């Protein structure tokens, strides 16, 4: 028995079983009136809301909206931040000058920028994308800059002794050796992308999962809130696994032990 539970199938079974038990307890407590259906919702209620929002496509629209904001902002923010972070390697002088500014900007919780960003960029998609960019770019920049500092000095020396110029050292050593750390940081950043999109929608929006959650909670439709939350969880899960696959695809030379990840 215990051997069977140590297999991956056994572990998956336990994981599924614990989720089922959790919902069963929740449902039972609500049936007996021990917890308030009005303030907490019920699994059956959530399921009904889920089916209804699938039937009228509103769930797909909201999910697509949020996913698009998060992804677009993440891609732009990551590209901009990573490029600047990498290029700072070229000039120690410039990087020493801008480093305190980077730290200063990073120490501001970017969420606090949300009201002015919405003021400047309106209530549409653009504002959410800008908010996500502001959250992800600085993190990508710091990750890339740090990674270039840690690029193997001996490999750089070797290339230099071969007669390579700075541009070749950048392209042949600094960028490729920084890439694993940069891509690994995508995991964190893609999560921040979702945070930015949802917070932007909380403040002002016409669609999206954040919009759905905010509206539903102000109307005490707790079941809808849960549908939104579970959808966000699925989206986050999906994005995390996309990054995982991307890593595998990009770095076939790395062994599994070298990867930082939580295995599910």
């Amino acid at each position, binding site marked *: 028995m215990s051997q069977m539970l140590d297999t991956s199938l056994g572990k998956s079974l336990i994981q599924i079983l614990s989720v089922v038990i959790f919902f069963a307890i929740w449902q039972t407590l609500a049936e007996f009136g021990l917890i308030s259906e009005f303030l907490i919702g019920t699994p059956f209620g959530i399921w009904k809301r889920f089916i209804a929002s699938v039937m009228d496509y509103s769930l797909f629209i909201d999910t697509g909206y949020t996913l698009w904001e998060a992804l677009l902002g993440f891609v732009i923010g990551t590209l901009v931040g990573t490029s600047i972070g990498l290029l700072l390697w070229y000039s120690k002088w410039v990087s020493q000058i801008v480093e305190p500014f980077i730290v200063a900007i990073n120490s501001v919780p970017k969420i606090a920028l949300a009201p002015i960003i919405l003021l400047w960029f309106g209530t549409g998609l653009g504002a959410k994308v800008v908010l996500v960019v502001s959250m992800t770019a600085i993190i990508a920049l710091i990750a890339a800059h740090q990674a270039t500092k840690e690029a193997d000095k001996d490999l750089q020396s070797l290339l*230099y*002794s071969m007669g390579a110029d700075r541009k070749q050292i950048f392209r042949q050593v600094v960028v490729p050796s920084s890439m694993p750390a940069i891509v690994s940081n995508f995991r964190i950043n893609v999560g921040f992308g979702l945070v930015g999109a949802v917070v932007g929608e909380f403040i002002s929006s016409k669609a999206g999962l954040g919009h759905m959650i905010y509206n539903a909670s102000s109307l005490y439709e707790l079941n809808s809130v849960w549908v939104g939350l579970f959808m966000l969880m699925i989206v986050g899960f999906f994005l995390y696994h996309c990054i995982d696959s991307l890593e595998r695809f990009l770095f076939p*030379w790395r062994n599994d032990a070298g990867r930082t990840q939580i295995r599910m």
Partner: protein
Amino acid sequence: MVSNPLVQLSLDSIHKSFASKGGPVPVLNGLTFDVMEQDFLSIIGPSGCGKSTIFNIIAGLLEADNGSMIYRGNKIQSLRGKVGYMMQKDLLFPWRTVLENVMLGLRVRGEDDTNGVEKARDYLNTFGLSGFEKAYPQTLSGGMRQRVALIRTLLMDPDILLLDEPFSALDYQTRLYLESVLLDAVAKFKKTVILVTHDIDEAVALSKRVVALSTRPTIVKNVHQIEIERSSPIEARSHKNFGEYFHLLCSELDIQTRKDEVV
């Protein structure tokens, strides 16, 4: 063997000091020695005497404070781009396959790949690495990786090979094997080698000449001619003169250590 070997590279009173909290620390204190054409020159000396610093200056990674280098009659700043540098770490690029790693030097020079690939495959065959072209370095053993590093060095066709304890991280068997691979390659491609080693046994078995350095601040103590006819490093170790040279060089270093204790 050659009656009157020509000087290929001469270092003339090279000085180098490094900054530290207590002021500059002199490391090289007027280092002077010659490297002949097709020489196999080993540099031995107490640890910390700046053996690697000499290489870094020759390769252009560091600049000497003072002194000059003459290469085939011309004064030079460094031999950057003309040397093949090999270190204790194989320094293979983990994200490049074996073939891509050995092609690195040619690519840095901007040479056409097509000729290089032919040559690279030849080398890989000779060194028993065919079939591993597409493997990543981390799947290879230490000895194989160091062979790949050696091919990368040879493929660039450098004027001088700078070998900084290239085999010291390997087990003895692999080391003997790679020593003979190295000697064969050097003879075949008529290369000049400067080898930094702390291993006197290795220095005697491989070298035509050995430079013994003093403690820091470092000067050349002695240059020894090693008169051993060798066809392989293993055979050299059983040569009748081997023991004599071995003890001679040991005593060079022993005197240094005794001085160390006084200081």
